[in-house]
């Protein structure tokens, strides 16, 4: 067996390849992006693609699955919100070829707008979720997920967190399995969810979850490591590694399948230890479940609910030990080093002008969100991918024409394609008169320069149709469309003033290549 050091995300790509996956689709999002990049670079037997957003990517993967192929969809945690609509109903239809969804949570919000705990989504959508604790498991669990998916007719979610996805460790390499394309059998009762079909499928889903509950206790994904029985700790993901490091003598119930949870194993473990603890990042997901089974357990009164865990947090919580401080406190003030727009960044030109004009800016997700920080301090709302234009219309509806004359929405090229187009249609349709700046830097920059429908290249490196953004916004009904190089700040200022003043919807496209793009 060959062993190789791999990033968790590279290990997942390898796992999909070894499992015979044929189709992979996703949308970039830290910490999930490298999975598809690795597939496109190293595992070209898999047809990999960036979709315009996560919902589409899941639908592409689900289509491939129904058509008989093992398929994969990758996204960050908030991306699964976008894909929630197909997710909840593909839970009913189930799969043909195995369908695996990689969901990357981000405790600590290293590169995200929130710290949501997507274990709740697995439970709500009634889907099995695997939760690896290192890169080696990330590969093995991904492979296994395809088998579980086909055996139990469920899409399967593999959940990572930043410290799994962006952590490196040794991974055993295997060969690619020869998994033939399954036959596609026309079966509307399974694949067409009209109410009459959905009702019996719901019964089926509940039956499968009960079967999976048994599997969860028996499969070895969840396992008891008996050591000293005075204290028993239930833990999952990277938190398990912290527990092993700081509590080497305690018994541990390691959770590798976080939904459905293993009732029998939990009962066996909880009834034999003197004191029971749950150590998990984010919400008391396992803790609440264990309490519902009737056991007394300590968890979130000791382990923080906010932020990511570290070995020293777990050491302090469980052992009462503080880290040894070798150096005294530094008395002076240490300036922080927040991230910022690069020198020469095209977005910076736009924010310099917006700052000067002192207008309200409804923002969006991308590098340009850094326009909220000094020296620009020019962003006043932002929530999720594509929100800027809808919120901009809401501002106008609430505060009238005066607001629309002194505000703009800003959104990047990739984010506009992801989920800004429908909001622009809404602005025109519902007679908004606001100004939208599409900051077109010709790439999906923040996540590390991925291609998108407006770059004219696919993930696999093929030439393709380059989406014409001007034609797109005109088709939405916007008559005033200006394309401008933002480096020409004098002209840009004039254009922004003119377009804000115009009592009809307008789009300014500030077009200049990302300074880091070759």
């Amino acid at each position, binding site marked *: 067996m060959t062993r190789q050091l791999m990033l968790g995300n590279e290990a997942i790509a390898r796992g999909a390849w070894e499992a015979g996956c044929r189709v992979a689709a996703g949308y970039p999002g830290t910490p999930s992006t490298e999975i598809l990049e690795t597939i496109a670079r190293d595992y070209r037997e898999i047809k990999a693609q960036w979709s315009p957003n996560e919902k589409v990517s899941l639908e592409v993967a689900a289509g491939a699955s129904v058509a008989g192929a093992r398929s994969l969809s990758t996204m960050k945690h908030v991306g699964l919100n976008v894909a929630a609509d197909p997710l909840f109903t593909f839970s009913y239809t189930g799969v043909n070829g195995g369908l695996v969804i990689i969901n990357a949570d981000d405790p600590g919000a*290293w590169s995200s707008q929130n710290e949501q705990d997507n274990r709740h989504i697995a439970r709500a959508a009634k889907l099995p979720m695997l939760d690896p604790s290192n890169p080696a498991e990330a590969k093995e669990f991904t492979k296994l997920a395809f088998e579980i998916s086909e055996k139990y007719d469920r899409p399967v979610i593999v959940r990572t967190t930043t410290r799994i996805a962006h952590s490196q460790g040794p991974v055993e390499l295997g060969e690619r399995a020869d998994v033939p394309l399954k036959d596609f059998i026309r079966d509307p009762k399974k694949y067409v969810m009209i109410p009459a079909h959905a009702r019996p499928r719901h019964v089926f889903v509940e039956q499968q979850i009960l079967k999976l509950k048994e599997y969860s206790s028996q499969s070895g994904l969840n396992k008891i490591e008996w050591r000293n029985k005075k204290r028993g700790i239930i833990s999952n993901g990277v938190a398990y590694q912290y527990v092993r490091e700081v509590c080497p003598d305690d018994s541990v119930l390691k959770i590798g399948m976080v939904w459905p949870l293993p009732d029998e194993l939990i009962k066996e473990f909880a009834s034999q230890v003197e004191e029971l603890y749950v150590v998990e990042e984010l919400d008391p997901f396992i803790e609440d479940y264990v309490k519902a089974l009737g056991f007394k357990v300590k968890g979130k009164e000791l382990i923080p609910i906010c932020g990511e865990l570290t070995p020293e947090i777990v050491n302090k919580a469980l052992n009462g030990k503080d880290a040894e401080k070798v150096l005294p406190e530094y008395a002076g003030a240490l300036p922080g080093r927040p991230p910022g727009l690069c020198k020469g960044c095209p977005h910076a030109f736009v924010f310099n002008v917006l700052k000067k004009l002192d207008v309200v800016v409804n923002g969006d997700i991308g590098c340009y969100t*850094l326009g909220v920080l000094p020296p620009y301090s020019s962003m006043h709302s932002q929530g999720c991918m594509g929100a800027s234009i809808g919120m901009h219309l809401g501002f106008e509806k609430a505060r009238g024409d005066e607001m629309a004359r002194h505000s703009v929405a800003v959104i990047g090229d990739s984010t506009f394609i992801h989920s800004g187009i429908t909001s622009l249609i809404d602005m025109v349709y519902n007679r908004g008169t606001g100004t939208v700046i599409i900051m077109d830097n010709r790439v999906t920059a923040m996540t590390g320069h991925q291609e998108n429908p407006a770059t004219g290249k696919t993930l696999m490196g093929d030439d393709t149709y380059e989406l014409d953004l001007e034609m797109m916004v005109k088709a939405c009904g916007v008559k005033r469309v200006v394309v401008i190089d933002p480096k020409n700040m004098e002209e840009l200022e004039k254009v922004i003033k003119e377009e804000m003043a115009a009592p009809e919807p307008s789009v300014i496209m500030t077009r200049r290549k990302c300074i880091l793009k070759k």
Partner: protein
Amino acid sequence: MKNVIFAGVGGQGVILASKVLMEVAQKKGFDVKESEVHGMAQRGGSVDCNVRYGSEVFSPLIPKGGADFVVSLEMLESMRKIDYLKKDAVLIVNREQINPAPVEIGAMKYPEDIEEWLKKNFANTVVVDTTEALKEAGTRKALNIVMLGCLSKYLEFEMKDWEDAIKSLVKEQFVEQNLKAFTLGRELIKS
């Protein structure tokens, strides 16, 4: 187990430095774990990599008070890692200041006493001046490998192990330059 933290500013190449160390340790038969941060933090913000190797490594994160080495590619960044130092650790710092945004806009001052303070409070502080080495290497981009060269003087691995790892991880046209940078880094540490 050995615990090494590489600290720096986004774009300085701490990830490559840690990859080379991991490769060496893995080839020597150690279990290796590493943790890094991508995405928004990389846009000129503080970045770090944790590398751990030994017979069996659990956590990919080094706990506070658990680092055997902190290698900082920038002065100020070293100060963010002092809580991680073990008593007998070695702190290797590149004597270079990169102004963070609050200093650039005049809201704060870059602390001038870092080197003096570190040397006074932590005996195993080694501050290196990489200016000449980088000139000789022919590129400022090789700073990460120069600093790795410094670190290598304290580790048990042989020169050949490092060379093999650099060759396997660096693009072919940059191998010579990086090998030179590595050697220049070693020479910065008095044996």
